[in-house]
């Protein structure tokens, strides 16, 4: 465990309140003539890592970035980085090759090295701010383009290991909290509607995961045939529509018979969080996200509102163990988590 300091910092991309928790944009890039990570030897992957480390001093946004060779970091450190959305599940669990991470001090810009592609440049920020993130990421991409030579095809665009990313290599995504749509059982309709517009909906941890605490990740499913700006504008418009639907569902709940049921859920969550003596991450996330709705429902419950949004993410195993600076097995972790939540929320 080497990243204790990082764990004590607030997660910068967590929006206090609001349907959109965070926005992320990423670009997939590969060095020309070097096999993609799935076929590259460890030495080739190390070369890919060295190539970008060699040029970052020349890139303003990454000049003081931290460089981590993930092979030097244990499971808990990697788990922490995943919880802070600096690395994906795939990179965090990569046991072979030369996985790496480069990130700037405010954690807004990062580069995953040797995940599925050589480089995944990403920018994460609070709320709905994809256009802003894109301007910054595009500038970094331009500087890298001048210094490294990327695999590019006249017809197909940037070449990536998986054809779902070919073209712009761009994936825009938002983490959305949609409790009202979930309660009014509108998620299924929404998901199939979004799919028609080439938007994928995923769970709490992104690809392949289940929704937790009514938090969903939406992202564009298409990366070819449209310009980056078109993809982003289109995506933002769709996210704005989802926000509108969620607000409408909230209004519907607060005026109708569902209000009592929602208040009941929030109060039960409050009761459990104030009294639980052991709680796992999944259950805690479910209850904490319920408390986010007290204002919408006009309820007056006493707890530290400014702690709530961060808590949803920092009660996960990586953060807890790093903050406590010791390896805690599951049962002890659940006990510590219940106490940690009580201290932060109700003290």
């Amino acid at each position, binding site marked *: 465990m080497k990243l204790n300091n990082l764990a004590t910092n607030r997660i910068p991309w967590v929006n206090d309140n609001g349907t959109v928790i965070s926005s992320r944009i990423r670009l997939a890039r*590969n*060095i*020309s*003539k*070097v*096999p*993609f990570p*799935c*076929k590259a*030897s460890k*030495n*080739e992957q*190390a*070369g*890919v890592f*060295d*190539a970008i480390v*060699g040029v970052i001093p020349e890139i303003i946004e990454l000049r003081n970035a931290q460089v981590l060779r993930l092979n030097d970091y244990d499971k808990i450190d990697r788990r922490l980085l995943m919880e802070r959305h600096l690395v994906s*599940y795939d990179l965090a*669990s990569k046991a072979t090759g030369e996985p790496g991470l480069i990130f700037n001090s405010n954690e807004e810009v990062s580069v995953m090295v040797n995940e599925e592609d050589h480089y995944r440049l990403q920018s994460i920020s609070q709320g709905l701010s994809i256009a802003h993130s894109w301007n910054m990421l*595009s500038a970094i*991409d331009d500087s890298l*383009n*001048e*210094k*490294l*030579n*990327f*695999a*590019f*095809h006249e*017809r*197909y*665009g*940037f*070449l*990536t*290991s*998986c*054809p*779902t990313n*070919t*073209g*712009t290599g761009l994936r825009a995504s938002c983490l959305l909290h949609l409790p009202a749509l979930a309660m009014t059982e509108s998620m*299924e309709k929404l998901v*199939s509607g979004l*799919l*028609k517009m*080439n938007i*994928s909906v995923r769970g709490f*941890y992104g*690809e*392949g995961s289940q929704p937790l605490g009514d938090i969903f990740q939406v992202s564009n499913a*298409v*990366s*070819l*045939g*449209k*310009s*980056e700006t078109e993809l982003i504008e289109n995506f933002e418009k769709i996210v704005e529509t989802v926000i509108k639907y969620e607000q409408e569902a909230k209004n519907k709940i607060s005026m109708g018979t569902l209000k009592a049921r929602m208040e009941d859920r929030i109060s039960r969550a409050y009761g459990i969080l104030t009294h639980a003596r052991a709680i796992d991450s999944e259950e805690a996330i479910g209850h904490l996200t319920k408390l986010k709705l007290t204002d919408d429902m006009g309820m007056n419950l006493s707890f530290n509102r400014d702690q709530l949004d961060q808590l949803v993410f920092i009660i996960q195993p990586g953060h807890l163990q790093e903050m406590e600076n010791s390896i805690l097995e599951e049962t002890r972790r659940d006990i510590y988590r219940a106490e940690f939540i009580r201290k932060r929320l109700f003290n």
Partner: protein
Amino acid sequence: MLCNICNKNEATIFFKGVFNKQMLKINLCEECGRKKGVEIKPGFALEEFISNFSAFNAPAPCHKDLKSKKSLICPGCGITYSEFRQSGKLGCSNCYSAFSTYMTPLLEKIHGTSRYTGKKYKPSRQFEEHDYLKIKYSQLKKELENSLKKEQYEQAAQLRDKIRDIKKKLKTA
């Protein structure tokens, strides 16, 4: 929404794509999904499903076709077309030309088109060679370290010569 395959269970897995210029949706229950190769686990990627997915809807290939597809090998990384179909991942940028007959239709299936209209990008020739050398350089240095550790001095000497050559080239570039 019921599963499209068994028509009994509630569908929990939803896929959508453009196939043969037609919008197609598949809704599967967990059981049928598993039978079709969809495993619900962290890290499950759509790409793992691509190959099965395209096989679902593509007209049945004749045997000759299948044979030639299977025997296609990328000279760049040695991956075969059937390996790609299994993993959903290409091994290097050369794969796009090695499997070119199948790449354009596949990209059209996924994205609705295969024509790039994004940022203009002009790879610069002088950087190309330079980049490659830099990567080769650090790769050889690591190999040298390893062979010194293993006390394989003959191999180390050869590596040192190679490194010296690359250093020269890098200086003149």
